[in-house]
């Protein structure tokens, strides 16, 4: 399991860092937030990201991509985490793009992947329906009709759901909520009659929508992958998303850590830098150790995207759980060690705390992934 970036990936990361520092600093997120921006991202910056080739990173060359794989994608997401860059890259390329490249027919791929790489089409993945992430619990019904399928039900917390041109919808075509069997994925044009979207403002100032499907009719060609057997496909798409979220959280964690270490050396109280106090030094040293441990799991999780499903599941869950836990700890310590200024809106630390909370929750929080990992090693049984 290679856990060190290649020369190529390092170059990608360096370019991303320079670009984001110049064009998409944390101040950009503040502007979007304070202006209550309708999109939730800056289309001009998105256009530049497309020009840099980021939308092509994970796709195979045969589909017009760069074939840099998920370690390459992770290198970019880590840097996006550093500046809290908001963009459609996650929902469109990682989620929509994976759905198509893993499950799409040649026709579906030909119709959509070109426009995705060109930055002309945005996607969203509609999975969750309840309070916490639980893909097996999907109940949204897709009933077979003569012409195709009719979708009825509701999805919540659909990232980029309100701006997406197309939705990848995980629906139940057989079995009962709670079962892995009987799921199918559908490609749905967001303009289809019966699709009703409501943007919700959430903690991280980005986009998440509630999407209702009221008798939404799609034709048979909308099916993505095999009917009733969508679980494995969905699981693999989600793992790519989880690995990228872990990489983004790593970038956030590193920024919080660096910023806090800097503050410990600068802030004078009792006539000395507060970083000279052992009570803070030991906590800082533990944060360093935990962050390095988490970094290894994130690198391994990204490298495991193309491994066999068992290994991929273990390493991705390890990365998402470990990074989620470490980021929570670092965020909390960053606020605490900054003292009073740490709880003000003026300091950027609070923005990382908020985005961290969302990233930790999306597609399974620490407890979800500890459960999944525990099932994988045979220590926990499936179920709630």
């Amino acid at each position, binding site marked *: *399991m290679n856990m060190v970036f290649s020369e190529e990936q390092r170059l990608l990361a360096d370019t991303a860092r320079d670009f984001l520092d110049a064009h998409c600093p944390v101040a950009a997120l503040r502007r979007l937030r304070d202006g209550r921006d309708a999109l939730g991202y800056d289309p001009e910056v998105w256009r530049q990201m497309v020009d840099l080739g980021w939308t092509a990173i994970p796709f195979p060359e045969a589909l017009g991509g760069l074939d840099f794989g998920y370690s390459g994608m992770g290198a970019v997401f880590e840097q996006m985490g550093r500046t809290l860059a908001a963009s459609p890259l996650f929902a469109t390329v990682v989620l929509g793009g994976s759905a198509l490249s893993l499950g799409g027919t040649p026709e579906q791929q030909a119709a959509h992947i070109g426009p995705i790489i060109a930055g002309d089409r945005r996607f969203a993945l509609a999975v969750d329906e309840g309070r916490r992430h639980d893909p097996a619990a999907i109940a949204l019904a897709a009933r077979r009709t003569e012409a195709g399928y009719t979708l009825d039900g509701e999805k919540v917390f659909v990232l980029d759901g309100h701006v997406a041109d197309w939705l990848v919808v995980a629906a139940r075509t057989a079995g009962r909520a709670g079962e892995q069997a009987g799921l199918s994925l559908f490609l749905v044009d967001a303009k289809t009659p019966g699709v009703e979207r409501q943007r919700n403002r959430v903690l991280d100032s980005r986009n998440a929508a509630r999407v209702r499907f009221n008798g939404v009719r799609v034709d048979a060609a909308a099916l993505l992958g095999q009917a009733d057997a969508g679980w494995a496909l969905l699981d693999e798409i989600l793992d790519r998303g989880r690995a990228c979220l872990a990489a983004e959280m790593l970038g956030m964690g590193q920024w919080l850590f660096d910023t806090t270490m800097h503050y410990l050396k600068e802030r004078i109280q009792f006539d*000395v*830098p507060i970083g000279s106090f052992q009570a803070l030094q030991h906590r800082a040293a533990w944060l360093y150790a935990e962050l390095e441990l988490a970094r290894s799991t994130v690198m391994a999780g990204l490298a495991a995207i193309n491994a066999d499903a068992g290994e991929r599941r273990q390493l991705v869950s390890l990365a998402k759980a470990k990074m989620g836990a470490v980021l929570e700890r670092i965020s909390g310590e960053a606020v605490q060690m900054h003292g009073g200024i740490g709880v003000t809106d003026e300091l950027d630390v609070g923005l990382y705390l908020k985005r961290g909370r969302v990233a930790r929750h999306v597609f399974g929080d620490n407890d979800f992934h500890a459960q999944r990992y525990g099932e994988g090693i045979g220590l926990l049984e499936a179920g709630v």
Partner: protein
Amino acid sequence: MDDLDAFRQEVRQWLDAHCPAAMRVPGPEEVVMGGSQAVFATVEQQHWFERMRDKGWFAPGWPTQYGGGGLDAQRVRVLEDEMRRMKCRVPQVNIGIWMLGPVLLEFGTEAQKQRFLPPMTRGEQGWCQGFSEPNAGSDLASLKMAARADGDHYVVSGAKIWTSGADKADWMYALVRTDAAAPKHLGISLLLIDMKSPGITVRPIELISGASKFCQVFFDDVRVPAENLVGPVNGGWAVAKRLLQHEREAMSKMGDLNLPTQCELVPTVRRFLADGAAPGDRAIRQRAVACAMDEHAYHLTVARMGQQAKARMDVAGLMAIVKLVHTEQDKRKSAVLIDAMGNRGLGWEGEEFTEDELATVRQWLLSYTLTIAGGSSEVQLNIIAKRVLGLPGN
């Protein structure tokens, strides 16, 4: 085939012919502690010891004139690689060879080298390390054991503590204070002391785990020839720091001892929880999963450290967290294991309990030792804070 490949072939053939099969699998026997009191648990152990000794491979990289193997660094690496590949056990544990020897080669006089190195390479002399004192643990440089010059001798008085294997060792290399008036780092010297000298008393310390790996050693006006002082007088701190650099290498060799793998957390917890479900079992399973994940992250990090080193990236920061993380995780893991065992994890001795169960209890108690010995967790955190993070001193 270049010379190195030819050497590799030669090593393989020799090891294959001379390393007994029983010495290529983990075994329950105690490892051989090199020295005059070396004990062999089996004939194979003795054969393996004698053959490696006669080949000069106890210290393969030392010059042949001192009984070493005379191999260059590349060939030493080949030998170590091949021994690891064939799972050959380390033929003896000898901190004289692993830690003191390299320092003697660097700082010792010719007479000291000729006198002390050959017996080490024959496995005839066992050494112990006299560093910690009752009032100098984490703050090692505050050590007080005095060595007063008296003609061509030093007269040593004081005490050392936490000395591994002092009860079996023939010699001790000790840090002593040769100048009480100098700043604390500048009055220390490294002295080689014959453990048979009059005035030395060794008392093993029984640990909570029941083991007595450590001793306390008392010195009551012990006369040591001045020629046994290594390096400059009052320059012992630099020598000791150099010596501790070799400790890491020695520790990595300890990892190759081919001991039976310690009881694995996951299968053990599963085994103990298989007989039905008692209230609280679910929480124990979840804690075990958390430990398994932590351990997984640790192993990945050690592997990443290797990959980064190979890619010529800096690994100093990762090196600094290894001991801390490993021992702290081990303590948590042992506690979960003991909880999973319930009253089977409370046995001390006797027929009622299996060997496995008793060993796990001792392992749990030992885990408390490991976050203290070899630089406590707090010392490790200080090192990370100052050297890795660059936080200011006070």
